């Protein structure tokens, strides 16, 4: 298994790409929901742009999950 210290010199593996996509997806989910909770949405409920952002974030995280079993093969 590749270690985090390999980052930078070696190509990313499928598993590392999977974790990266999960991290981006979760960050996107949290960011979009935070913007809404802190009043940035300026409206009751999620706006259309926020709904699209949430769907994209969820899709990224899901694709990331499916990549985890693929191990050290280069991404």
């Amino acid at each position: 298994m590749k270690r985090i210290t390999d980052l930078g010199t070696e190509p990313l593996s499928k598993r590392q790409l999977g974790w990266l996509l999960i991290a981006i997806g979760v960050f996107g989910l949290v960011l979009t929901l935070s913007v809404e909770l802190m009043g940035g949405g300026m409206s009751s409920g999620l706006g259309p742009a926020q709904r699209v952002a949430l769907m994209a974030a969820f899709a990224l995280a899901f694709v990331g999950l499916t990549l985890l079993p693929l191990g050290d093969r280069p991404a």
Partner: protein
Amino acid sequence: MNPSHSPRATAPAISSAARGYLQRVLQLHAGILIGVALIVFLAYFAIYTHYAVSLFRFPFDYDQGEGFELLDTILFSQGEWPYRDITHYPFYSSNYPPLFHLVVVPLVWIFGPQYWTGRVVAYASTLVTATVIGLAVYRGDSGRGRGRLWLATLSGLAFLASNYIYHVGPLFRQHIFMVMVEALAILALVVVTEREEKEGRRSSRGLLLVMLLLLAAGYTKQLAYATVATVFIFLFLRRPRRAVLWAVPFALATAAIFAGINLATDGHWLINTVTANVNPFIMEQMVMFSRQWFQLHMLLAVVAAAYALYQLYFERLSAYSIWFAVALLNSVTVGKWGAGESYFATAIAASCILTGLAFARLLSWTAARSRMQHLVALVVIPLLFLWQANRMFHMPTHTPLLQSVAAALGRPTETPVRPQTGCSAPRPAKSVPYVDSAGVGLVGRPPDAADREAGIAIVRHILRSDTPAFSDEAGFNLYAGREVVTNPTQLLNLHRNGAVDLTPIIATLEAQAFDTVVLRAQLYPDPILRAIEEYYKTVDLIEMNGFVYCILEPRE
């Protein structure tokens, strides 16, 4: 007894003969179908060129906003910035980066302020993009043997045959020029990285070229950030540290140019290219365009997505797959107010490359397995291209021959279109000699002599007085030799973002400082439209390009 004459031996002999016959039939059909597919896509190219030439001859806006891009070019040709204080007369500013207009400047110096200058450059850029697509497919194919020229040609021509590329390709718009520079950047990235992996040494010069192309794309239109992201994602996957090392100087160079222009324009660059581009997001618009894009480009979309997923799970991701995924994701911005079908152009270019590469892969794979399978693939692939060609059907039908062709293909020979009446009462639908599977659109029908005459009739109204017209299109003032006043969509964008004081503009309307007002889609902010209604009255309605233009003069 001769074994070959035994019943047991005869069966395989017949089977072998039948297989040989079937292979010859398949080979013949493959050749014919490839030929037919090439002819069909070349016909689309001829239709595209006909439309482009019609636009080159048309001296007014065909798509609202073209004239403002011409004005930007004129200002650059005079050494002036188009990023200005819009609250001062002539109340004009631009929201587009400068590169496309700078490229057109030499043509304006030589031939004067003509619409065809930018339209020719835009059209030529689509041809370059199609060539880049063909090259990418041919290179990718030839890596596994000899490249198939017919497949590369079909992939490139499929880009030009797209309804969306047809509609917007020959317009005086910077978007399609951006797509060309993006495609060049991605191809350069692939060539550089492949060479590096082959030779085992890095090519900083090659990567520098990629960065310069990315800068050029970004300073053609802001939407190129998707391709910038693609390049850095690809570099990050291959060698993360290298991606970061290149990202820092790239970001610094981008910021330095941005700051330089902002300084030179007293901050108007930032207001007009960033603030004015924050627009409301309309979910229904995004869904409508996405659905239409998929239905029109179904083969390209499905094959490209399947090949990208195959690479994601079973081999290394190519730059083309990442480009397609990021461009497709970025296409959701088509839901922004003011966005349109051109927002899919980058995804279409990427999908054409991936489709060509996927088919090349399929052909190589079947060739390695059995001749029969290979021949079946050779029959199926051109059939699929023909199926895609049918989905993207579009053609003008202004001659009896073209009408016969449309009828023979089971298509209508005309399309009923209701004229767009933003500023006047609704009008009944009229038959337009143009058929398009994208449906009734604002663009696509080649403008004719009647449209030109209508434009000149509007100009005659302006020439009856001494002032420029307060117009939501620049073309009439340019044709009349008058100064271009206002940019309605820019005023609207800035007004929505609370970044403009409309008082000075409304004051000139109250003073009836303009003898003529020309409206098409009423794109001005509401306070301006209310002032026009209060101080001006409609004196004529003129139809051009399917739009009813309202000509207004001061009320007594």
